[in-house]
């Protein structure tokens, strides 16, 4: 039966002030049921204080085939990391 239900992705905020993190997915007939299922499946051990669910079909993902084109060009641009730069002696509070 659950195969007839759409898939939802679940995000949990573990504590106030932290961001919601993706924890997994589940099947549900609608968004309300998805929240209830997320509560029952993913917060049984006090994992969170807030839940988001979003239909998996509504997420647009990058194509793994394109990973080279998307992410490789950043590899040789190490100067984008702050640690690339030597901090002059005179600068005290950086």
């Amino acid at each position, binding site marked *: 039966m*659950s195969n007839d239900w759409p898939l939802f992705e679940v995000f949990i905020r573990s504590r106030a002030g932290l961001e919601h993190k993706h924890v997994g997915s*589940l099947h549900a*007939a609608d968004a309300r*049921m998805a929240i*209830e*299922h997320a509560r*029952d499946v993913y917060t049984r051990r006090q994992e969170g204080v807030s839940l988001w669910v979003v239909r998996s079909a509504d997420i647009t993902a990058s194509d793994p085939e394109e990973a080279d084109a998307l992410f490789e060009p950043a590899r040789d641009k190490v100067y984008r990391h702050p640690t690339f730069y030597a901090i002059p002696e005179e600068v005290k509070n950086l």
Partner: protein
Amino acid sequence: MSALPAAPPARSAAQSEAHWRYVLRLADTSLVLGQRLAEWIGHAPALEEDLGLANLSLDLIGQARLLLTYAGELEGRGRDEDALAFLRDAPEFANLTLAEQPNGDFACTIGRQWLIDTWQLEIYRGLSASSDTRLAAIAAKALKETRYHYRFSSGWLVRLGDGTQESQLRMQRALDDLWRFTAELFTPDEIDECMGAAGIAPALQQLATPWSARIDADLDAATLRRPAAQPYPWHGKRGVHTEHLGHLLAEMQHLPRAYPGARW
């Protein structure tokens, strides 16, 4: 010389008896319904529902443990939660007749759950203002759990009622079948009246109106019919049960009775 402060009125034997029996009724309704829901484990229509029903079950059994422990103390004969749960026979159980009804199909389970959730919402809200502070604390905790149970059951009620032709037919049939047990929910007997007069329990009849309003609103949202009121031949809270309770207890009590004192 100033008068001594009046001594608190001695609790009559009748009131003490009513007190522990009242708490026992609440406990047994939670215990029996929790046991019924546990029967779904491994059989629910989806993994997520399996976990959901088990969660409701554990909440209810948790309520039963607190209430049974307290009932045992009020009774004062040294019976703890386990003795009360596992070593009583059906006529000594005081749960609502509705709670012991079999799971049936999923619509039946949802109908039973929704009717008891809406009842417990009113009862626990009233009890959280009880003059009995221990009972008030248990009710306040249980009320939070019950709000979730109600969210779950009313969501399914609407989903099935306002769903397919088949699901609506089954949901309506379940309600038609269970409705005869609802008269017991708000019909007070001498124990309810004694507890109401003592400020320990809310006046049962006054809770019927908000319950009824909520029931009608939910049924409306679910495009279901409210079955006609039926007379009150059921007395589970007085120990007169349908045939189903004995079978439920046989399964629930088998292990502690076959191996007294068994431990994990």
